[in-house]
């Protein structure tokens, strides 16, 4: 959507957009001090299954309450002074929100599977100079933040104060307006309280309405509302975060957590020690499935880019060799 004519040669929108030129090698070098080598699901130290100890959290949050528990803990223990999270309006429109008090974290629990302008809250703050910020975001939001942090363009956002990035797993997001319109019709105009997608093999969108009615909608019905840009996204597991959380291939009641950086590791271990969360090793079979799902998303994205004739000169600046490796590993994993 183009709102206004712009003749700016090098603007922030363009530089930070996760769908304009992405140089993963440079980002990895600058953020992690390492080369972009793990093409399956990004650099990581460990993958675990984790759940919040608090049953309240588990109930109110999307799955195992891990993100809410960790962010609450990070705020309490001073890892960060403020968190940028996504809350939903009563109409399920996602918007960014700055949270400074641990008890307010739950106001942002849950998901509406809709893409939202979370980072607007990061940009607008307001922040004090000394504050450390933690952000929870989808892979594209995490990528945008990393692009901000490595961009040569003059700093105008508080990105240097972002010290913790918790990434979410994501396979796609929906476009708000047509999706909600469809959904409202589908549930006969009832007020929607919660949305959830059940794990495979069921894969249903469960809608709970205010009258406590539950509606099961096959995912195929809502696929038309998936944002087209999600089709060329290479990242399922927020590969550029400190710590990624998701449900893919997890075991019910537990989340899969990918620990990527020292900070991510420290946060999880301290939270565990404080009995905020519990963790277990992820069984080999589940890990295999996670790797496979991640690779298949990459494969789909690369094939879509190829269709569009943008495989080599599109937004991704991957070498032919890397592209070849991703595609062959995905083929192997899928076979």
């Amino acid at each position, binding site marked *: 959507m183009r709102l206004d004519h712009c003749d*700016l040669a090098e603007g922030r929108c363009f530089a930070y957009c996760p769908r304009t030129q992405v140089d993963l090698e440079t980002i990895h070098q600058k953020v992690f001090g390492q080369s972009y080598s793990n093409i399956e699901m990004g650099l990581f130290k460990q993958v675990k299954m984790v759940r919040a100890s608090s049953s309240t959290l588990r109930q109110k949050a999307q799955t195992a309450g891990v993100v809410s528990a960790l962010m609450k803990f990070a705020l309490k223990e001073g890892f960060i002074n403020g968190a940028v999270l996504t809350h939903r309006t009563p109409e399920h429109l996602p918007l960014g929100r700055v949270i400074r008090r641990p008890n307010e974290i739950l106001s942002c629990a849950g998901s509406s599977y809709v893409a939202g302008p979370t980072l607007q809250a990061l940009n607008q703050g307001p922040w004090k100079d000394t504050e450390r910020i933690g952000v929870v975001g989808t892979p594209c939001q995490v990528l945008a933040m990393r692009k901000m942090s490595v961009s040569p363009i003059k700093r105008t956002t508080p990105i240097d104060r972002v010290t913790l990035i918790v990434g979410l797993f994501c396979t796609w997001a929906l476009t708000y307006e047509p999706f909600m319109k469809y959904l409202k019709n589908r549930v006969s105009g009832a007020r929607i309280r919660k949305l959830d997608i059940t794990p495979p093999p069921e894969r249903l969108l469960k809608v709970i309405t205010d009258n406590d009615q539950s509606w099961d909608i096959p995912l195929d019905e809502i696929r038309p509302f998936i944002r087209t840009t999600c089709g060329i996204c290479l990242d399922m597991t927020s590969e550029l975060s400190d710590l990624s959380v998701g449900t893919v291939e997890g075991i019910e009641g537990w989340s899969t957590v990918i620990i990527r950086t020292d900070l991510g590791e420290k946060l999880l271990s301290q939270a565990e020690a404080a009995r905020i969360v519990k963790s277990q090793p992820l069984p080999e079979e589940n890990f295999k499935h996670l790797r496979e799902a991640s690779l298949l998303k990459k494969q789909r994205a690369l094939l879509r880019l190829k269709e569009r004739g943008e495989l080599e000169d599109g937004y991704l600046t991957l070498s032919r060799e890397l592209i070849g490796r991703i595609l062959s590993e995905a083929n192997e994993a899928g076979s």
Partner: protein
Amino acid sequence: MSILSKDSPGKKTLLMGNEAIARGAIEAGVRVCAAYPGNPSSEIIGSLSQVARELGIYVEWSVNEKVALEVATAASFAGLRGLTAMKQNGLNVASDFLFNLNLTGSKGGLVVVVCDDPSALSSTNEEDSRLYAKMCNLPLLEPSTVQEAQKMTRWAFDLSEELGLPCLIRSVTRLSHARGNAELGHITKNQPNPQFDTSRPIIPQPVMETHKALHDKIKKCQDRFEESPFNLYRGPERPELLVVTCGPGWMYVREALANMGAENRAGIVKLGTTWPLPTSFLMEQLKKANRILFVEEVDPFLENNIKELYAQRAGELGVKTFLGKASGNLPDIGEINPDIVTGAIQQILEVSYEPRSLQYAQEAAEAVSLLAPLRELGFCAGCPHRATYWSVKNALAMDGRDGIVLGDIGCYTLGVRPAGFGQVKTCHAMGSGVGLANGFGQLERFGLNQPVLTVCGDSTFYHAAIPALVNARYNQSNFLMLILDNSATAMTGFQPHPGTGRTAMGAEAPVVDIEALCKSLGARVQVKNPFDVQDTTETIYELLQDREGIKVLILKQECALVRVKRQKALYKVRVNQERCIGQDCGCNRRCTRIFKCPGLVWDPVTGKAQIDEAICTGCGTCADICPQSAILKETI
């Protein structure tokens, strides 16, 4: 006490052309005056309204020109003197009635003043209203000076009464808005009491008889014109060139000849009565020279009619060369001025004369640029229309179906320009945006997949939009109508209208409720504040998704120019200089490059936006368009 109402015969005073017309009507004892405002005619009724109570005149702003003419005509039918004034487009609206009125005739003196706008300085079109006089065969007078405007108007009432026909007066911008000396005449009092003679109907039938009667009346009129002091010749007995002119052309030709020192070579025939032509007078003049140049504004009205006369009586005149618009000596569009006339006469008489330095235009532009900020034609600071078009632009972008915005006449016509983000795509007559929307709203059946949106001001709504809305309801068209209700006829000078609660004479009036009216027509109606751009954008978007029937969104916010006179700013607006990061923002100066309210200025020294406190009206809209939230609005 206004000079217009002073009964001081012989007093010389400076009057605007339109005031002189008003004064002429006052001197003639006019009792009923009605008009719809339209530049350059608005000050006629405007100035009459100021003295109406004092002089016992009834003055009204009518909803449109046709109604205004009908109101003035009613006075005439009852034996009183009536006047209506309008711009050229207004006569198009009133013409349906006029083309029957010519056949029925009038009783009390009835004068229709039409102020044309050559070069369309404040109009959507350029039009020569004089052609109407010929079409409906009514007497036409064209004043050349302010004094003449006053005298002619006064006389027009007498002439109208004598002939039993309405009399047309054609003015143009440079006469209506110029100021000149006028010697006041006596104000006629002791007017008759109104009485409508019910013994016979006033109808155009039987048409063959009334049409014949009209021709007889106009023949009588022609005889009167032959002796009119408003027609004259000035110049040598045997000039090399005879210049036939009317209106302000009279002054331009005199100035041109005087400057060139060619007064002894060219003679001027100045016509004040231009339809029907005073043929005997003209025949005498045409004999004076073999080369005849016509100087008049817009269409070749005199040029063609005198050529027609020549075609009938060439034998008496011999071979003549006619120069003017057809020959290419003068432009056939736009205003004329002394320079243009000088150029034409110079070429014909082969006089070498340079009216002014060739660099004059450039030097003048440079001098002006030092005094005035460089701004393109746009909305005032704090204008609600800017906020409205911002929301329209964003809602249409969100909608993504390449929506069509149909407009018409008012300040909001600027929506076609960058000031309104180029949103408006059509502009024709008053109310024709919604008329076109009626049609576009029926095209979905043929595969048109663009949502239809029309914008209409409050005054325009009353003027011409209501029948189109009724049509839309009846024929079940599908569109969204935005009524930009700024509670003013802003473009023509804030005249009151049926929504303002005031009459032309300053009395309180019941408000004709647009919302209730639209609801009664079965439209889905919402009312919003355009300054809340987010709410407005969402509402427009949401209404565009409703594919059934007519939707009306009334965007209610008083015209900024009216509001600032009455109340303080809504907000104290400032740009937080730390938060505004100028060119580093990446917004590419969204506030001063795109939104472009004159209250926002770009400081080239700091490279940041600022509020120009002298002109900011504190609407607060810009606070919602800054992506950096650097523009702050604080409630006062």
